[in-house]
């Protein structure tokens, strides 16, 4: 475990990168020894470093600009006219905005619950850990991959066609259905990746010790799969909170989610309130990540 990447990595690259990623969720192999001095090939390092710095600048400058200008007093232009917090005040008084935030959180939470449960079940069904694929799983595999592959605009249009045919009134419920539909696959894929990397010996051991199927599932499989499930759930939450395209097709009256509201703000005119909304969202997001990082940081063995 002290040097070089695991040869298995190379073996794994065989059918393709994507195929090779998920197993690493639980990849036992360790990265190369941190103490080893970086020994880059003879590339023009300075150039590379500059480029990389520029890339980070490119990624963060637009965001930084938004944050900075959310405190700008000017309404129309990008000229700095002094510090103000009034846009935040306006934001907090904007009932439509707050309603949209509520809608988004509600949809995201419910979609996360439904999609995580259904997706995890599907993953357990067609990819029992360590098993090889069986012919019967093929249709399920395809079914679960399609929503991920399909362009969002196609999914949105298809769902609208369906709701139209059924004369279903668009509402929060239709948004929820749409979000669950495109989320199930993501959960299933992530959880399956996790399951695939588990050591079957553990289950066997449990069984040898007298555990029944349910007990094996509850006390071995589920706990081991949990990080994968949690990852899937988080993925769903973020996808749902941020989805505009599909939602724009299927959202009905009173079902304005945050992205829909932001879009209408963008369309309806230039107001620094959007900068304030952006900054608030960013802050919440980063804070959440930080808290989560903290919470999960000190797992035993994580230093390895």
């Amino acid at each position: 475990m002290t040097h070089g990447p695991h040869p298995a990595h190379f073996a794994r690259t065989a059918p393709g990168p994507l195929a090779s990623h998920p197993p690493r969720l639980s990849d036992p192999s360790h990265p190369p020894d941190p103490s080893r001095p970086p020994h880059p090939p003879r590339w023009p390092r300075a150039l590379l470093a500059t480029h990389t710095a520029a890339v980070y600048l490119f990624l963060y400058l637009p965001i930084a600009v938004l944050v900075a200008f959310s405190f700008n007093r000017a309404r129309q232009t990008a000229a700095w006219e002094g510090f103000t917090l009034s846009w935040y005040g306006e934001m907090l008084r904007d009932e439509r905005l707050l309603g949209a935030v509520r809608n988004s959180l509600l949809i995201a939470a419910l979609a996360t619950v439904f999609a995580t449960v259904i997706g995890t079940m599907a993953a357990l069904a067609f990819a029992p850990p360590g098993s090889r694929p069986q012919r019967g799983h093929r249709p399920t595999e395809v079914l679960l991959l399609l929503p991920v592959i399909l362009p969002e605009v196609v999914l949105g249009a298809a769902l609208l066609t369906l709701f139209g045919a059924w004369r279903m009134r668009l509402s929060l419920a239709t948004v929820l259905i749409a979000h669950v539909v495109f989320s199930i696959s993501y959960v299933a894929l992530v959880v399956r990746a996790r399951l695939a990397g588990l050591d079957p010996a553990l289950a066997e051991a449990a069984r040898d010790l007298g555990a029944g199927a349910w007990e094996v599932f509850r006390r071995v499989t589920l706990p081991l799969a949990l990080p994968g499930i949690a990852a899937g759930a988080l993925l769903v939450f973020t996808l749902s909170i941020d989805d505009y395209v599909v939602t724009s097709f299927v959202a009905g009256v009173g079902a304005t989610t945050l992205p829909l509201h932001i879009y209408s703000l963008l369309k309806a005119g230039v107001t620094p309130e959007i900068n304030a909304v952006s900054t608030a969202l960013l802050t919440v997001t980063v804070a959440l990540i930080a808290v989560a990082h903290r919470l999960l940081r000190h797992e035993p063995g994580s230093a390895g």
Partner: protein
Amino acid sequence: MAGEGAEQDGAATPRHRRTADCPSRPPGGGRGDGPAGAGRGAWQTGAGWGTLALALPAWLVLGSFFLLPLVLMLGVSGAERGIYGGLRPIADLAAYLRSGAFLASYRQSLQALYLGIAWRSLWMAALTTGLCLAIGFPAAYALALHVPRRRRGLLLGLVVVPLWTSFLIRTYAWMFILRSEGLLNHLLLSTGLASRPLPMLYTGGAVIAGLVYGELPFMILPLYAALERLDRTLLEAAADLGAGRAAVVRRVTVPLALPGLVAGVVLVFVPSLGQFVVSDLLGGAHTMLLGNLIQNQFAVARNQPFGAALAFELTAAVLLLLGAARAAGGSGKAARAAGAAGQAANEASASGQPPRGWELL
């Protein structure tokens, strides 16, 4: 493990096809280090019916809200629009089918005008992908091979954080920067670099900038994942054997990075192809792409058959592309999920820690 290998070989052919199809299945699951093949079936929570029951909810939901809509839309794509929109009722289905009228929307989509849009969409997506690659590859390379390991987690996290922020807001940032009285023009004017505001928003360039900005992390992450596995000793060996700098990159780095490259290309290209929000917001309803055209047919032009036909053509294009990507040495069925899973996994393993959901996306 030897027995496992044998078992593997026995099943080689069908198995390989399967793994090639499916991104997140551990390829050659039992081959190298796998716990996989050893006691397969040991985890089965229930054979046969139990398995079926577990998959049932997914089938129910996706069957009624995914497959059924697609089938319906296929039907719609063969229908005719009514005068004011909607669908014209078909009196005699057999005669309708015989007349070939159900192909009208597909025929319409083959007009030069719409082929032009398809071409423009492909070109935009290709340009976006190319730029992401050109910008992302060196960065991923530096991250994977030059940055000390303990700082890598943070830097990689910084690539991921923008993906956590609202996509619309990231697009809006560019509107804010590029508009006539936006930040960039303000700077240009105040520094005297321009005498009058340059029109930047609502141009093709703005669309490309927005697309590259939005998709760049999806290029860097899989590239990093592939490069991170690259063993430096290989590079050294190549150099020792007399390979020049360019030769090392060309003959060692690139081939080994290829899977990550294909993944990145797919992850960037496919979403760019179906894009309509960026082209709407930054292109000012001026640069019409396939995604806009489809959305437009459903939202305003009230020509659902045409919109549906276009949607299926876009889907076909995406599937073809993924097939091509698989042929090019990457996995097909490349999907953000798989990519995201890979990212999480790789990021986690990069810091030597078990994977965490928080790093996902």
